[in-house]
């Protein structure tokens, strides 16, 4: 059974020749009309994810991977097509940034955990586990503005890994933190897979896609150019990026 169906999804951004973000700039520039360039980030993308499957998404920088993930998770609206979701999705997107700087780790965990679908009793019950996973027990009452970017990222991943309901969506998750934290993330990921969770993983690393995914799709210029077994797609990705990539399958 498909838990996620991406059906003909398209997304474009209008890039203005001059960026105007204030009323003043708009008023003063009223006699200087702007040119807009249409950047087609995703073009008629379709695929599905089966229950319990691990799907990898690969592609070069700017090929639309992150936009696609945000559309799958419901953060962005597509211009065309649709996404059918038959399971609760827990995304791990941009978790290193955007915390409330004036709140401590505990309050930020409550905020992010509730947005990710946990109830307050569930959050309270898992609080120690989350802080332990992120190795931040000593800094639980420290405001996030005093955290390093690495600490903030670890906290985000720790919350998301505890909040997983059915589908886990990961954007370059294994590239964060030190070796110990990466190992814990990998271990947690394997536990979730063993428990039957569906996952979608975006990575530039063919070795990660090969090791953690059953199947993968390769995006290029907003289109799916290949959908196959993870190993095969990882090889195609290497062919696409060429020797300058410096990565191995």
């Amino acid at each position, binding site marked *: 059974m498909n838990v996620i169906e991406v059906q003909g999804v398209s997304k474009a951004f209008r890039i203005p020749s001059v960026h105007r973000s204030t009323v003043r700039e708009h008023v003063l520039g009223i006699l200087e009309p702007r040119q807009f360039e249409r950047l087609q980030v995703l073009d008629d993308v379709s695929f599905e994810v089966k229950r319990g499957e691990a799907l990898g998404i690969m592609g070069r920088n700017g090929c639309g991977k992150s936009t696609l993930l945000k559309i799958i998770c419901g953060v962005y609206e597509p211009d065309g097509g649709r996404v059918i979701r038959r399971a609760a999705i827990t995304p791990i997107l941009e978790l290193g*940034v955007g915390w409330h700087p004036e709140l401590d780790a505990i309050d930020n965990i409550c905020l992010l955990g509730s947005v990710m679908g946990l109830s307050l009793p569930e959050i309270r019950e898992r609080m120690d586990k989350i802080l332990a996973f992120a190795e931040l027990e000593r800094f639980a009452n420290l405001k996030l503005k005093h955290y390093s970017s690495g600490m903030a990222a670890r906290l985000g991943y720790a919350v998301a890994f505890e909040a997983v309901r059915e589908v886990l969506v990961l954007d370059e998750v294994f590239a964060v933190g030190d070796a110990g934290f990466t190992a814990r993330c990998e271990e947690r990921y394997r536990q979730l897979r063993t428990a039957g969770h569906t996952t979608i993983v975006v990575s530039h690393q063919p070795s990660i896609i090969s090791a953690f995914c059953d199947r993968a799709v390769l995006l290029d210029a907003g289109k799916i150019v290949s959908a196959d077994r993870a190993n095969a797609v990882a090889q195609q990705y290497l062919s696409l990026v060429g020797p300058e990539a410096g990565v191995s399958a």
Partner: protein
Amino acid sequence: MPAEPAAAESAARAGWHGSRAGLIWTLVRTDFKVRYHGTVGGFVWALLKPLAMFVMLMGVFSFLFASEPNYKLNLIIGLFLWDFFASGTVAGMGSLQSRGFLLTKARCPAWILIVCSISNALITYALFSVIILVFLVLIGHTPSLAAALLFLVYGVAMTMVIAGFSLAASVLFLRYRDLNQIWDMALQAGFFVAPIIYPIGILPERYHVYLYLWAPTPLIQFTRSVLVDGRIPTLTAHLYLTVAVALCLIVGTVIYRRLGPRAAEYL
């Protein structure tokens, strides 16, 4: 065709609905904590702002309007209603910008962040409402049940005006980042457009209609009318208020529904 929640995904959303109450409570609690440093003292400190304003304005204008009966009572009611309107709209406008980081993390309806952002202004107003009612009883000016209920209705109406404004302003603010400065100027002018420090009667009656176009004016005047003068405004006046409040909510909702789905792209 935009991606919309299909019937099939209702089960997927069930878990999220279960945590919605937790999210609302966490947003209100953390907003209180940030704004008032998590202490009752901080909250009381915030109440001092309109009180200090009241003392200062009363010191000056009670001499000017010495012949006006109940001037001081009208002044403090006007100031607290205005404070609710001003602080609610300012918080609502900045809600998505300050809490928008949550929108980029997971699927989260932006309206919850917007509506929760006005909770603290609402808490302050609710506390003031209790204080003013107790004060009126203590000075032997006990309002009738109908007046007290109408006072509650006007509070709800003001909340709806603030919510309508905030729905529109919060999504517009992400596109026009100086909107808060423009609104600050509008509030400064609006403070004098609304009859807060002066009795509306000092202006020629033909100008009253223009003052009533500014949303806080009818709410301040009607509140004073029921609490201080003991007069219930006419049915026509209430019809006007209903239309004005509905219009604020409808326009706010339309703008929010049009721009809100793309809010995350501007964060």
